[in-house]
């Protein structure tokens, strides 16, 4: 059984995933910055950890076969399909909107709103997994502004390693302002595990 949701820009959705279930994200018009938070269904203290995911996978990028890990180092989700490219675990460098408002603060507000819906207090909201964006890194450690990746119809699929509650945040503020990208929608499909 499957269900599909549309995720509009600057909105978030929460979904429940059972062990073995799949979360599919499609970008019909091309990539749009998407952040993911997750908590273990039976233990909301245990939530996604970018730091542990980076340390255990030995990479700042997410791609096929990457396992997303929790605060207590439990496997949460595995990337089982990805035709968009390398996705980022890195924080976006701060930049400012033309109207003077910092984009990082706007990005954090959207993320904290989503975190609240899955039971996270603001101080527990972690650095999110970020899909359809990639931050280039220079040898001396400079982090470039996020580049949006993913051609039209790019698809990403993650498989739950445990029962989860997931928040997905369409967050254009983690990338430089781009009106065309900012309007793009994403489609989220939940596939229940096969018996």
């Amino acid at each position: 059984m499957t269900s599909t949701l549309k995720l509009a820009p600057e909105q978030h959705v929460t979904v429940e995933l059972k062990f073995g279930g799949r979360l599919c994200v499609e970008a019909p018009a091309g990539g749009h910055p998407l952040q993911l938070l997750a908590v273990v269904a039976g233990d909301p203290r245990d939530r996604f950890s970018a730091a542990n995911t980076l340390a255990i996978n030995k990479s700042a990028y997410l791609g096929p076969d990457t396992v997303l890990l929790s605060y207590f180092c439990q496997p949460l989700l595995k990337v089982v399909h990805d035709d968009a490219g390398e996705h980022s675990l890195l924080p976006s460098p701060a930049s400012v909107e033309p109207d003077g408002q910092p984009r990082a603060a706007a990005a954090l507000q959207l993320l904290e709103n989503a975190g609240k819906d899955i039971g996270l207090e603001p101080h527990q909201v972690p650095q999110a997994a970020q899909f359809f964006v990639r931050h280039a890194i220079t040898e001396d450690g400079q982090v470039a502004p996020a580049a949006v990746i993913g051609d039209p119809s790019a698809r990403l699929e993650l498989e739950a390693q445990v029962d989860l509650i997931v928040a997905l945040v369409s967050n254009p503020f983690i990338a430089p302002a781009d009106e065309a990208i900012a309007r793009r929608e994403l489609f989220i499909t939940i596939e229940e595990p096969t018996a």
Partner: protein
Amino acid sequence: MSPIQATFDEVIPARHGRAFEVNEGDVIRFTDLEGQQCADLIAFARDDLSTRMSPFASVTETGRIYLSTGDALVSQHFEPMLTIVDDTVGRHDALCGSCSPGMNRTRHGGLGAGKRTCHVNFVEALRPYDVRPEDIPYSLNIFMNYPIGTDGRVEYATCMSKAGDHIEFRAHRDLIVAISNCPQELTPLNGFNPTSSRVEVFSHTVA
């Protein structure tokens, strides 16, 4: 404002941690006493424990993974908490958080079981402040040599610090600070031999 006085001065034994309080304007000095030793540092606003130093937000603020002299360490809401005011090594990690029982189990299986970890050191040190284990924030890892390639690959390497190398932080507000002498002995980080360090806090007193 003078003279400068050490209000806290302790040698932290290998594999252990400490928590202590600092006032706005105080300078915290961490010294690697024997070389090749990294330490995890976390900080909370003393009047609001939900405000904590965030290495990830600090990378957002600076646009750099490697933080050093002059860089501000900010809270999750980008408020200044500490500034690095001196640094004789120039290589620290802001991304990989602390070692923990879960990480040891995942990375080393049974070999990692029962070892001390930075997360456990923080839980113990912060017990007087009622910080829950799941609320220990991610750390700035002093002297931790965790280079990231342009391809995004990361690998643990041995700390570049020598005996006597130090880093200093100035506090922007009243803080609770905890430092864990990293007990990791199964990766090259501490040269497979965790050792001791010294933490001093200097305050300006009104003459």
